[in-house]
């Protein structure tokens, strides 16, 4: 067992008669005691609405909620808490940018640049924005291993490029895209870059000032935090110029019968009672991850991915997708002749949880010329023995289907 395994109570259980091996952290990560207890302490001790009333619990809740915002700011090195908007998750964050930034600004002749590897959450909002504004969607070409060639990116980015929306890390291929270089390119032509950080922020140090990105979206639940909380980072001057898309309580300054004005940043984007417990839980998750160190987590996850690729490569009939080098903590693969759902079912019977399907990346599946794949993804609580169990499970899958097919 690795030293962090004990922090995650859920891992200490049997599934289908075998000790659980959880290899689906790219879908959602498990939660340590530290996060569970922080959320519990909020509900048991000071559950209250924030930013209103003067009672003691309300003040405590507000301090904790806003304290979590400051933790997020520090975690991604934003300049100000005005740049940190709490959302329901990555999807909501990207939709906010598409609705509030893109819709009023785009017009015919403008271009939105994406990659074919985007998660549906960073694809469909832009399809909709393009349809409604007349702007064109364009795709950066992927190399054979799913990486981007910066020279080709240079050729595709032009003054017509108003937005480039791109994943930092692919949830299927584990590729890490050169965000800093792409940000520089798009800025040179006057556009903005929107980064889907759902798979990067939980696994590596992401510094919005160093990368010089305009928007960054990520989810709490993939980084040891609760579900239902996410973050939109936006450059202050951009957020300042944007209109809210949700209206109601909490986000207003002055309300009249016919006109109203908005609160200042970031609250004008947080209409309604916010996700208080989620934000406080996310703050605890950040404390937990920082106590280990993001560089250490990144190195750990990459080491496991290298080990998994090495072990999987030794097996006959395995196809591994994505780059050989420089991949983050996940491996997507297929076993010849066995559909990934069937692979996942046999592994599940062995207590091993992997993802099987299109991973919310249907265009990328078509690019890979498959309908579905299996994926094992790793986090700080996994170690080599989990991968050994995976390999054994896959051997069993091969034997089993070899047998029933005969």
């Amino acid at each position, binding site marked *: 067992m690795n030293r962090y395994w004990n922090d995650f109570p859920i891992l200490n259980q049997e599934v*289908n008669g075998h000790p659980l091996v959880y290899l689906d952290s790219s879908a959602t990560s498990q939660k340590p005691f530290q996060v569970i207890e922080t959320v519990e302490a909020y509900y048991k001790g000071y559950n209250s609405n924030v930013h209103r009333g003067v009672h003691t619990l309300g003040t405590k809740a507000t301090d904790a909620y806003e304290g979590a915002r400051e933790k997020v700011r520090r975690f991604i090195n934003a300049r100000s808490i005005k740049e940190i908007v709490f959302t329901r998750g990555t999807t909501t964050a990207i939709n906010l940018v598409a609705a509030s930034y893109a819709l009023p600004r785009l017009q015919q002749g403008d271009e939105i640049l994406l990659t074919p590897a985007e998660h549906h959450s960073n694809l469909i909002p832009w399809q909709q924005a393009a349809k409604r504004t007349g702007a064109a969607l364009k795709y950066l070409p992927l190399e054979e291993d799913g990486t981007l060639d910066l020279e080709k990116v240079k050729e595709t980015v032009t003054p017509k490029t108003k937005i480039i929306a791109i994943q930092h890390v692919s949830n299927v291929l584990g590729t890490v895209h050169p965000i800093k270089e792409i940000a520089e390119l798009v800025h040179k032509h006057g556009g903005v870059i929107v980064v889907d950080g759902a798979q990067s922020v939980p696994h590596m140090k992401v510094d919005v000032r160093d990368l010089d990105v305009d928007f960054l979206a990520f989810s709490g639940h993939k980084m040891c935090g609760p579900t239902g909380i996410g973050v939109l980072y936006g450059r202050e001057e951009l957020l300042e110029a944007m209109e809210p898309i949700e209206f109601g309580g909490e986000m207003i300054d002055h309300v009249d019968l016919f006109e109203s004005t908005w609160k200042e940043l970031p609250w004008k984007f947080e209409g309604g009672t916010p996700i208080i417990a989620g934000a406080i839980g996310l703050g605890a998750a950040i404390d937990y991850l920082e106590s280990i160190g993001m560089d250490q987590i990144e190195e750990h996850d990459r080491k496991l991915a290298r080990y998994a690729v090495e072990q999987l490569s030794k097996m006959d009939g395995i196809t591994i997708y994505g780059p050989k080098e420089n991949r983050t903590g996940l491996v997507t693969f297929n076993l010849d002749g066995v559909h990934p*759902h*069937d692979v996942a079912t046999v592994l599940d019977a062995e207590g091993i949880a992997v993802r099987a399907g299109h991973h919310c990346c249907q265009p990328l599946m078509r690019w890979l010329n498959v*309908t*579905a794949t299996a994926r094992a993804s790793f986090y700080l609580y996994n170690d080599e023995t989990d991968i050994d169990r995976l390999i054994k499970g896959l051997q069993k899958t091969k034997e*089993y289907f070899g047998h029933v097919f005969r």
Partner: protein
Amino acid sequence: MSLDDLYQRVIMDHYQRPRNKGRIEEGAVTVDLNNPTCGDRISLQMRVEDGKIDEARFLGEGCSISLASASMMTEAVKGLTVDQALELVDLFSKMMQGEAIDIEKFPVEDIEALSGVAKFPARIKCATLAWKALEKGIKQQKRA
């Protein structure tokens, strides 16, 4: 929960040697359906003559359970009236929910092999895809 309950030999036989795979030349209703959570898809064609399904064929991509189920379903509905076929859809759905049913009512006994899917909740959608396509096809046919 045993894997052998799920992957019975007869299921694997239908998966490897699907019956009624292909297209119908003319006079058929076509239903394209996919399972958005996993990417399985089926294109089912059926031809109805005098209120009876005289031909049913499919093309599809998916796991062993979804393709075997499609193969068995196309075998089962041939020669049935559309209302009889709808009754089978209902019967199959009950079997997937683990309800006790009269298995004899299925005109093709192979279908019984799919009853084990009920113990694998994550796979029920795989087994029901073809039957949902059938139901949709019959409704289209009735409207036409």
